[in-house]
């Protein structure tokens, strides 16, 4: 029994990979993500974390690229490349952790709303619609101000403001799954609500959520950059947005310090684009309705 199940799973996985591989842009995206993932993991090996300390910086401030400092230095003489490498870690952690929070909240609310229907659905989806209306950036700004600037707070702020999209998607999917015969079978065999939701609905909703997760990460990383740029990030954990904030604050643009402005933004664009490309491809592979379209 289990051998057959595993065989089937392996077959599904290889079919999925073959479908996914046919999207060339997704492979490029995956490559970019792999690169930045490695940089994040080995950040301390690639660049000494001591280079992040303002008091230990010895290089001249606002210096252009040179043999010692490939991407020049910032306003206090820290190497921009060191900041970038360690910023990768912060941006990816915030993006992934915030997405995890949003997905958990969104999936729980979405499944409950879709499964119970009736007033539970109208209440939960009404709440979701309300949260969709509140403009994201002002809300995040207000919450970050209220909570204070730290890495954990930024994660919480982005996490609890990005769940409505997931909740809607999961609710719609749950509604369609709920009516399928195998759930009727589960009910007839005496499966409780909890069993039905976790064993039957969740696994069927998960593939679509997966594609959505990847797209949410890209939005979360953009949000982190924006919040850090506005000075709401954790000043002790420099991220890409923090570098841009410093560049703006010290007039890097009017001095033509391209090494201070260009690289952080380029990293954001690359990572966000990579997540978007992978997410779109996953959607195309996992969502049969999109497949017949194109």
């Amino acid at each position, binding site marked *: 029994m289990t051998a057959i199940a595993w065989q089937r799973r392996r077959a599904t996985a290889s079919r999925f990979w073959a479908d996914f591989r046919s999207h060339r*842009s997704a492979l490029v995206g995956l490559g970019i993500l792999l690169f930045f993932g490695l940089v994040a993991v080995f950040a301390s090996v690639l660049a000494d974390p001591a280079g992040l300390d303002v008091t230990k910086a010895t290089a001249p401030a606002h210096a252009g690229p040179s043999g010692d400092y490939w991407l020049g230095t910032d306003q206090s003489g820290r190497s921009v490349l060191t900041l970038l490498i360690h910023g990768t870690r912060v941006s990816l952690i915030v993006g992934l952790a915030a997405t995890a929070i949003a997905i958990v909240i969104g999936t729980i609310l979405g499944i409950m709303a879709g499964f119970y229907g009736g007033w539970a659905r109208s209440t939960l989806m009404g709440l979701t619609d309300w949260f969709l209306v*509140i403009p994201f950036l002002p809300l995040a700004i207000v919450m970050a101000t*209220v909570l204070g600037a730290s890495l954990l707070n930024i994660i919480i702020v982005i996490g609890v403001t990005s769940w409505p999209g997931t909740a809607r998607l999961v609710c719609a999917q749950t509604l369609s799954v709920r009516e399928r015969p195998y759930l009727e079978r589960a009910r007839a065999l005496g499966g409780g609500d909890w069993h039905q939701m976790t064993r039957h609905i969740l696994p069927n909703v998960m593939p679509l959520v997966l594609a959505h997760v990847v797209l949410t990460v890209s939005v979360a990383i953009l949000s982190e950059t924006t919040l850090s740029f*506005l000075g709401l990030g954790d000043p002790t954990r420099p991220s890409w947005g923090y570098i841009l904030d410093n560049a703006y604050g010290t007039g890097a643009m009017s001095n033509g310090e391209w090494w201070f*402005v260009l690289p952080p933004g380029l990293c954001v664009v690359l990572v966000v684009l990579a997540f978007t490309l992978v997410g779109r491809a996953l959607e195309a592979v996992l969502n049969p309705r999109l497949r017949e379209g194109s």
Partner: protein
Amino acid sequence: MRGYVLKKVGWSIGTLLFVVVFNFFLFRLLPGDPIGLYTRGRNMSPDQLVRLRQQLNRPISEQFVEYLGNPFASTINSTRFNRPVWDIIGERVWPTVLLVGTAVLVAAVVGVWLGIRSGWRRGSRFDRITTGTTNTLYAMPEFWVGMMLIMWLPFFPSGGINSVGVSGFFATAVDTAWHLVLPVTALAVVYLAEYTSIMRASLVDELRQDYLTLARAKGLREDLVRRRHAVPNALLPTMTLIFLNLGFVIGGAITVEYVFSWPGLGLLTAEALRGPDIPLLQAVFLLFSLGVIVFTLLADLLYAVLDPRVSTR
């Protein structure tokens, strides 16, 4: 139609109530002494302080009812400007309307045009290049685009709405337009990506409709099939989405206005952050939410007018 309008208006009022309630309680979560937060950096007579303390010491329920009665009353001055918050906001509305309006107009016109071109010839070279470009543009933070523009186009003014010493209506208008170029480009470039992909997707949806086959069977030229039949239908959802987006674009203008020191609501928000200026932040947040609600309602009504099928469904 009547029922539809009533339903949408009712929903907007409900949402407005939610936002007001949310706004009230969110700011009650602030840690520390509210008196200190509300008066930071201002000279207050002991008398005023006592009155403010009495005001804030009343039961939450009482304060809540008062707030619900008139959420737009400015009982507490801005800590940064030391003036009623809605007076300050009033001065800042028009620059934002000018900036956001121009940017959305530019982005919509160019975006729709690009969307039509790439959607009609799906999979062509033009389509692939456009889709790749819009994906990339969509991944860019608006403020970074702004910073790059300032750095690489130094002959344009990098901040403010007017130069010093410009007078006369015509000269001022030209000067403002000159100052608008970079901020509008930064905002439009990012929204352009969104509008292009929306227009492309809705045109692709129309491509296989029967009425297009009929139009071709009648012997219409391909160009006319596109212009007279496909595009008007595809424009419906796009126009609504553009309208719907307006409320959110105002929020998105925060960083762009900050980068270009554009004296609008976005810059005001960024200024309110440094401090933080809680009364001002609260009012700005309420205004942004209100903007989204109003534009959502308008978009729903507009859609019903443009496409009668919606309201009868």
